[in-house]
C-alpha cells in the first residue's frame, strides 16, 4: 500500500458519503410538495450550472469551444441521438480550431 493508494482511499471515504447517504434519507418517504418540486428540477439545474460558463474554456480557444457548443445545441434541439451530438460537437470544435484557425 503506497502513500498515493492511502490518499485515494481517503478521497473515496469523503466522496462516497455525499453520493450514497442522501439516497437513504430520501428513498421512499413522502415529502412535502415543495421539496418534491425542488428535487424534480435538480437535474435541469445541475446541467445548466455544469455547462455554462465552463463550456467556454473547454478547449484552448473560446471560439472553437463556442462553435462546438452551438453545434451540439442545434443537434440536441433537433432531437439527434447523443452520439451524433457528441461527434458533431467535437467535429465543429476541431474544424474551427484547426482549419479555420480561430
Amino acid at each position, binding site marked *: 500500500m503506497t502513500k498515493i493508494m492511502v490518499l485515494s482511499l481517503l*478521497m473515496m471515504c469523503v466522496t462516497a458519503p455525499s*453520493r450514497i447517504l442522501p439516497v437513504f434519507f430520501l428513498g421512499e418517504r413522502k415529502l412535502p410538495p415543495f421539496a418534491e418540486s425542488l428535487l*424534480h428540477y435538480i437535474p435541469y439545474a445541475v446541467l445548466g450550472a*455544469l455547462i455554462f460558463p465552463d463550456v467556454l474554456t473547454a478547449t484552448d480557444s473560446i471560439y472553437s*469551444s463556442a462553435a462546438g457548443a452551438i453545434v451540439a445545441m442545434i443537434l440536441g434541439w433537433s432531437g439527434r441521438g447523443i452520439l451524433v451530438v457528441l461527434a458533431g*460537437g467535437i467535429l465543429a470544435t476541431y474544424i474551427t*480550431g484547426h482549419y479555420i484557425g480561430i
Partner: protein
Amino acid sequence: MDAVKATADSNNVPVAAGFGYGLRTGTPIAVGYIPSAVACGILCKTAGLTAFESLFMSLVVFAGASQFVALNLIMIGSSFPEIVLATAVLNMRHIMMSSSLARRLVPGIGALKKSWICFELTDESFSVASMQKEPLLAPEFMFGLNIVGHVSWVSGTLLGYYGTSVMPQNLQDSMGIALYALFLGLLMPSVRKSRPALVVAAAGMAASALIKWTPYFTGLNRGIAIMTATGIAALIGALLFPLSKKRSA
C-alpha cells in the same frame, strides 16, 4: 400525495430496466469520458504516480474534477489533509444528485444495491439517468449504465498514462468539448419539450456564470459554486412551477 403512492404500488409506470439497456444507454458516457480520462492519466504520470497507483485512484475515487485537483495539489506539495478536504468539498454537489435520484429508483431496492448504484454516481451518469424518459429506474439498468462509464474512466486513465493514445494531438485538444456536448445533448431535448425545464436550466447557467465572474468569489471551490447555482435554479423552478398533484414529468 397521489404521485408517490402511484409510483409505489402501480405496475403501469414505465421502468427503465435491464442490464443490457443500461449498457447501451451508458455508451455515450463512456465515449465522453475518454478525453478527460486520458488527460487524467497524463497528469498522473506528470505528478509522479505509478501506473498501478493511477489505475487505483481512478477505480476507487472515480471523480474527474476531484482527481484533477488532487493531482495538482500533489504536484505543488500540499499535505494529505488539504487534498482530502478539497476533494470532499468538491464532491458535495453529489448530495443533490443523490437526493434527486432517490426519487427515481424503483422502490424496495436493497441497501447494498442502492449503495453500489450511488457509489458510482457521477455528474454524467446522473445526467443520463435523470433524462431517461421512463419515470422509474431499475437497479440492473443503473448497474449497466454505471459500469460502462467506470470501465471507460479507468481504461482511459491507463491509456493516457502510457501515452498510447491513438488520437493525433490536435484532435485530442478538440475533445475537451466532449463532456459538454454530452451534457448539451441530454439537456436540449428536455428544454425543448418543457418550459419549466428551460427556465431552470437557464437559471442554472446564469447563476453559475454570476458566481464564476464575480471577483469576490474568485477563489471559491468550483464544486461549491456549482452546488450553489444548482440550488438557486432548482429553487426558482420550485417557486415558479410547483409540480401539480398529478405529476407529469
